């Protein structure tokens, strides 16, 4: 009896995933645990293993399709079995036109003259297109197979490409190149004016000089899902909150000495490599509970949800963009535990394998740009949290000690607060206490 393989649900907040690539095709035999396809959420990529054994009878969604979680992605069973019961509503029929369907969400209102709602058809046959239209399609990364020729005798003209652009039917340059290379071997034009001539067909590229000349001045690339998510949350953050950033600095001599002393014996003691950032995380986890308005969520702009424990979000720079995994119950964890957990979470985030559930639930966030030499900045709050602490770089400062100028290392802190939730003075008191704790870190550890 044929069975469906579901799109897994990766975390409680995930509603759908995009299939990035199928590893198997219809007709392939699979065993339980064989990799079927790769997929991504807005923050991570995963591979889906087969939960069934048999032959792949039908694939309901193609590469690039956005598939709701816990919906059948394919059917596995014995050849000839009926899979109609397994087929999700609406799937299958759209498979061929999948890229268009996905893009359709962004469709704008068609120009006034085109009243009827156009269906997108893909013309894989011979395409008659004017040079001007072709040039425009190239520039704007429009797949000319989607264009409906309104010129004489069905010729695709400039207007038809403009229609597609107006409807948002453009693709990334990479995808566009792929489409192009699928149609014909990508060749460098050696004909006059850099055009591809007959002699170029089937000829291996590449004349770098020619390529340089014909290359576009810029490349348009659509946001991947994660970037879209970041953009959305950043815009929401700055446009809905009253954010205020304050800067301070503390004498880092104590934590530097402490770290140095740990470093010598870390291996012997089985301790992780504790960084200055870990120390800041620890200090924050211990200081924050004294300032409950900063360990809180502001709900609907009028309700403060103050947390009993500290769940520390740690901003991580990944190749896919910014991710913020959470160290849950940080206030209950030791410095060594916090350090180890922070490293593990960062690693998963960077590899893109982190569970979406680990990317939520923070009550306060720490973002460190100090390692990149930033002296102060304005971190942007992850809503609905009420604060975020930026950790800045170490700077050399001088202070007067017994009438003499003495150089010391100072570390900057940049705190952004939601002024709707908390006023400046209480926030400043948090910073003051945090600085004091860090300057007397051994005392804090002892508490």
């Amino acid at each position, binding site marked *: 009896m044929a069975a469906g393989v579901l799109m897994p649900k990766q975390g409680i907040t995930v509603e759908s995933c995009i299939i990035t690539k199928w590893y198997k095709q219809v007709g392939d035999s699979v065993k339980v645990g064989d990799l079927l396809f790769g997929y991504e959420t807005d923050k991570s990529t995963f591979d889906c293993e087969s939960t069934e054994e048999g032959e792949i009878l039908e694939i309901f969604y193609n590469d690039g399709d956005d598939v709701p979680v816990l919906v059948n992605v394919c059917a596995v069973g014995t050849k000839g079995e009926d899979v109609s019961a397994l087929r999700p509503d609406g799937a299958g029929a759209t498979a061929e036109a999948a890229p268009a369907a996905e893009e359709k969400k962004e469709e704008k209102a068609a120009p006034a003259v085109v009243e009827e709602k156009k269906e997108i058809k893909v013309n894989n046959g011979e395409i008659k297109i*004017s*040079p001007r239209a072709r040039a425009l399609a190239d520039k704007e990364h429009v797949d000319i197979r989607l264009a409906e020729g309104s*010129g*004489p005798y069905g010729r695709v003209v*400039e207007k038809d490409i403009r229609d597609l652009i107006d409807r948002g039917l453009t693709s990334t340059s990479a995808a566009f190149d792929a489409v192009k290379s699928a149609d014909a071997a990508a060749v460098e034009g050696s004909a006059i*004016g850099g055009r591809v001539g007959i002699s170029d067909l089937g000829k291996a590229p590449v004349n770098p000089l020619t390529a340089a000349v014909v290359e576009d001045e810029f490349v348009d690339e659509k946001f991947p899902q994660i970037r879209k998510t970041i953009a959305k949350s950043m815009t929401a953050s700055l446009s809905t909150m009253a954010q205020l950033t304050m800067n301070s600095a503390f004498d880092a001599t104590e934590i530097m000495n402490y770290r140095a002393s740990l470093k010598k014996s870390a291996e012997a003691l089985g301790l992780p490599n504790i960084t200055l950032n870990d120390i800041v995380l620890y200090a924050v986890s211990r200081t924050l509970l004294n300032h409950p308005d900063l360990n809180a969520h502001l709900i609907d702009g009028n309700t403060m949800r103050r947390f009993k424990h500290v769940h520390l979000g740690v901003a991580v720079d990944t190749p896919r963009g910014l991710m913020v995994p959470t160290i849950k119950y940080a206030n209950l964890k030791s410095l060594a535990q916090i350090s180890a957990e922070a490293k593990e979470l960062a690693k998963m985030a960077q590899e893109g394998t982190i569970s979406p559930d680990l990317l939520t639930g923070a009550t306060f966030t720490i973002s460190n740009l100090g390692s990149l030499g930033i002296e102060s900045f304005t971190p942007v709050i992850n809503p609905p949290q009420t604060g975020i602490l930026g950790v800045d770089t170490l700077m050399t400062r001088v202070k007067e000690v017994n009438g003499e100028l003495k150089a010391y290392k100072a570390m900057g802190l940049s705190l952004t607060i939601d002024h709707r939730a908390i006023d400046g003075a209480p926030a400043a008191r948090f910073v003051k206490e945090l600085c004091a704790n860090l300057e007397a870190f051994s005392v804090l550890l002892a508490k």
Partner: protein
Amino acid sequence: MPKSQFVDPVELRKAGKITFEDIDVNVYNKTVKEERKNYSDDDLKRIYRDITILREFESMINQIKLQGVYNGVEHTYPGPAHLSIGQEAAAVGQAYNLDKNDFIFGSHRSHSEILAKALSCIEKLSDKELMDIMENFLGGKVLRAVENNGQNSVKELAIDFIIYGALAEIFARENGFHLGLGGSMHAFFQPFGIYPNNAIVGGSGTIATGAALYKKVNNKSGIVVANIGDGALARGPMWEAMTFATMDQYRQLWEESKRGGMPILFNCFNNDYGMGGQTRGETMGYNMLARIGAGVSPTQLHAERVDGYNPLAVIDAMKRKKEILLNGDGPCFLDVVTYRVAGHSPSDSSSYRTKEEIEAWKAIDPVIKFREDLVAAGAAKDDELQKILDNSTALMTKICKMASDVEKSPYIDFDKDPAIVERLMFSNEKIAKLDDREPEVLAPKEECPRVVQIKGKERFAFKDGKPVSKLKVFNYRDALFEAICDKFYEDPTLITYGEDVRDWGGAFAVYRGLTEVLPYSRLFNSPIAESAIVGSAVGYAMSGGRVIVELMYADFIGCAGDEIFNQLAKWQSMSAGILKMPVVLRVSVGSKYGAQHSQDWTSLTAHIPGLKVVFPATPWEAKGLMASALNGTDPVVFFESQRLYDIGEQFHEGGVPEESYEIEIGDTNLIKKGDDITILTIGATLYRAMDAAKQLEEKYGISAEVINLHSICPLNYDKILESVKKTGKVVLASDACSRNSFLNDVARNITELAFDYLDAPPAVVGAQNWITPPFEFDKYFFPQDTWILDAINEKIMPLKGYVPTTNCTPVEQLRKAKMGV
């Protein structure tokens, strides 16, 4: 016909008869002995010398052509060689009394004529004059090649110079008189009054007439000789030339200071053959060529037949004819009997004549016979004459060696300078006046009735948003008039003529008002002789004057085909820039007058290299282009349109300026800005295109950019391409028949130069490839506004809801091409 002359029915219907004077035939009968009273022995020996130089020159080319070697000098010459072996005595006899102020024009067989004239000039000019001429010709280049080569005198040097320059020209060398670009049939040497020979039979007839006109109008000394062969007497342009040259008005109507006959001699070297056709007895019916003089004018052109095998007989005749011409009693006509012993060309096997005939003429060959006469008369010893003959052979051997040597006489180097001929196609000069004397006029410009009338006119077609009435608006013909009138008061050499230009003011009234201010010699009616009208303008201009001629309808271009296409277009470049051609040829595109009076032939003229072609469509364009054409030194075929003469300036801001201004020939005129489609027009089609643009805008929301191509050649594509790159779409329209319309050339260039910008191939809209039907059916023949919309709808961008009026589908296009319509 001027009002001063009465066409009297009584006189015309009276009985009577025409009587003729006898025409002399070979009446010269003096012996050399008798002539020793009139000539020194040196003169007689020099006549013999010149005959032998001419003979040796032709023999040399003959041997080079046939055997590839002359006196040990090997050379291959692939070009033409129409030799005058046998005709030398006639040439020397003609040139004997001509000096550098007398102009000769020749035919394809004119080596002897130009060399004889040169030798005569060398004899008459002082050493200083000769040195000046040689130093100044092509910057002394030819002189440098021949000087310091054993010459004993300036005259000897000059003889080397002239023979070398001519031979280098024939051998296509850079040291030739015209860089070798003219060649055998077009060799000439202007500083000696030797004007172009012509490869078109009889081609010199009209051009020489124009040179005589130049001398007459500008009071220049000397006479003009049109050398033709007997075959040329069959050609229409020769008769037109004689008709033009004998007009009664020169004697009866022209102002006192210019009154009298045209100083031109039509000289026929009558060798009895037009190529292989025997003119007397086979292809013509005059029996004796001199007879035709009787049919041309009451003076019978002072025609006579003279023996061209006796140089003294020809000298005698020439002396008398020159006197007649200088006395203002021309033109004259000479039938000079001669014979070419060589074939028409080296490929001629003389299949049309007997050996006996050739031998009979050889027996009286002047090289032998005149030598015997000189010895017999005691004028020279035979060994002296033998020495002269030997010298001529040595001279020719020396020159042939030099001219065939590629080191000494290189070819022009196209590899090094590929644009060498390109630069010679136009002279592109701006010269406001070609002479400094005061222009001859009958009244100040301010008193010209037309100038007064124009003062009261509105110079823009709209006033306060309303159209100005037809009579009040400064129109297209006023614009032409204004530019032309200005130039008449500036350049004293400017003249204009054509059919009905004086009292009528031109068929389309452009010249109305000029009659009152210009003397006859500057504005006169010509016979209905289009070849002579254009050909004489060519001669007038190459002699140093500026001229506007009018052919009335553009359809008559065909009547002056050779004069426009071979003469007007080519002499600047064939002369390597020595001659200038400041001629404006006005032609008007008709309407309402059917198939032979309605054609736009811009494409024909634009096809011929060397012509500038313009077709203004608005008064602003007309005035600026005419001013530009009249300030220039190049031939401009100036198309006008009878649909346009009445219209005022509708586009140019501020209307047509009163002051003089120029529009550069080659520019384009942006009539209306737009974004979606470009419409390019030539001629009166502009106004239908504007109608089409309006409909596009109002009915289809399409914004059209309209550009008028008032210049066809040259044409600057910058603004056209800029527009097409913007819009991506272009339709081109003119009243020319669509097949081979110049617009196809523009369309091709746009396609090549803006291919990647095009949204559709350029669409050309032209007239049908039919005869022009009567005016009532204009809309079926000439492009209409709807045709432009049809082309856009069918070929460029379907117009929503548009119903086409014509069938311009590909199927129809193919069918028409297949049918040749």
